[in-house]
């Protein structure tokens, strides 16, 4: 379980997270929605230490990532043990262009997890089967469509078998057709009870697969609840206003 309390994060004088709290339970899909610049991605990046928070408390599976004001991060050994359980999929895929599809997935297995080449290959192929890309193992990222590239990125994260899988707007740089192929992979993962935190603009999708939804607005959690609560009976006027744009 991830517990985050009173997270503050600013870039210089620009406050991006203004005291947000949330938790993520094992086995659930948490969708994070909200307009651009509301701090959704920053929140996700703070969990993965791609950003460091200014103050607040984050705990992952009873291990403390950071706490206090100013936030004090735990020793490296703890941070690394937490990171091992966190996977991340980016909006821009961020595949390694000079590696084949297979190597993109195996490289962390062999060089970080110190797996043998054969074991890494087997694990990677299983992860590629899950996203339906095992046949593309020997191709290079530039030879794939955006949707396929994103599915490789998902396989790359899956192969490390993280407890939490974070998605930072995974379909925002894809056209509608490619979006649906990536979403169907996420749907499959949710059926397998993979714990996922998904920052997304795909409202229908969030509503369909999320167990809980967080609506963020201007650096704050404006509203959280089940998809039913948020999409059918939003209480916060900002949520109402935001969702209205999508129903039009």
């Amino acid at each position, binding site marked *: 379980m991830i517990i985050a309390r009173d997270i503050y994060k600013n870039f210089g004088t620009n406050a991006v997270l203004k005291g947000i709290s949330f938790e993520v339970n094992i086995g659930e899909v948490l969708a994070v929605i909200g307009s651009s610049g509301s701090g959704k991605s920053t929140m996700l990046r703070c969990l*993965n*230490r*791609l950003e460091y928070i200014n103050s607040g408390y984050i705990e992952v599976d009873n291990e403390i990532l950071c706490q206090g004001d100013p936030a004090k991060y735990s020793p490296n050994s703890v941070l*690394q043990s937490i*990171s*091992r359980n*966190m*996977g*991340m999929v*980016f909006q*821009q895929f*961020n*595949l*390694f*262009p*000079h590696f084949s599809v297979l190597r993109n997935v195996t*490289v*962390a297995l062999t*060089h*970080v*997890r110190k797996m043998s080449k054969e074991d890494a290959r087997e694990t990677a192929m299983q992860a590629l089967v899950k996203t339906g890309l095992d046949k593309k193992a020997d191709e*290079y*990222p*530039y030879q794939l469509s955006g949707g396929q590239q994103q599915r490789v*990125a998902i396989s*790359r*994260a899956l192969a*490390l078998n993280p407890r939490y899988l974070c998605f930072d707007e995974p379909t925002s740089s894809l056209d509608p057709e490619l979006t649906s192929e990536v979403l169907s992979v996420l749907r499959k993962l949710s059926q397998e009870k993979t714990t996922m935190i998904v920052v997304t603009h795909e409202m229908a999708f969030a509503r369909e697969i999320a167990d809980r939804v967080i609506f963020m607005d201007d650096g704050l959690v404006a509203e959280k609840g089940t998809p039913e609560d948020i999409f059918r009976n939003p209480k916060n006027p900002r949520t109402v206003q935001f969702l209205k744009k999508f129903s039009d």
Partner: protein
Amino acid sequence: MRLFQNPEKLFLMMSEFWGGTVTALEVFFLTLLFALPLGLFIALGRMSKNAFIRQPLHIYILLMRGTPLLLQLIIVFYGPAYLFGINLNRFFAAILSYVLNYAAYFAEIYRGGILSIPSGQYEAAQVLGFSRKMTFVRIILPQVIKRITLPMSNEFTTLVKDTALISTLAIVEIFRIAKSASSQSVSIIPLFVAGAIYLILNAGVTQFFLWFEKQQDYYR
């Protein structure tokens, strides 16, 4: 055309040219051997967050790129002799000057290449658990090498021609041989021969880079 009527003289000139070419190749390869890695370290230092590392290197690059290599050769060789009475080996002084000068150019090329790699590559590597060193060696550097191949080919060809400058330190090389042979035989031919040698060497450099580019064609 008297040169060609005297085969003995012609043979002598050619063997001198051969010696000069070997010297040029020595300067070329030794400079690359040391300047290519040194330039990478200078580039990394130039991008350091620590101003005490970054600023001196900034000034170093400014000095090396901002003054003529010819002048640097003279200062490196004659400077220690005048100031401290230390007589450096001529060839050593020459190589030292070339390495210091070319490392500065290489450093800026590396830096440009490194800065052109999107930050997402670092982020993906970090999330996968790569150390900073592993990220640089496995992920960043291979992509940098592909991106800097073309600007590097410029520097390599310039280096071939710059080897002519070591004649300043009275080291026998292609251009010096050509000039003296030309004045002795009252002929322009030796100068053309020198030009042809540089051209042939650079044709080799060009071929190498065509091959090297092709090696990296497997990805975009």
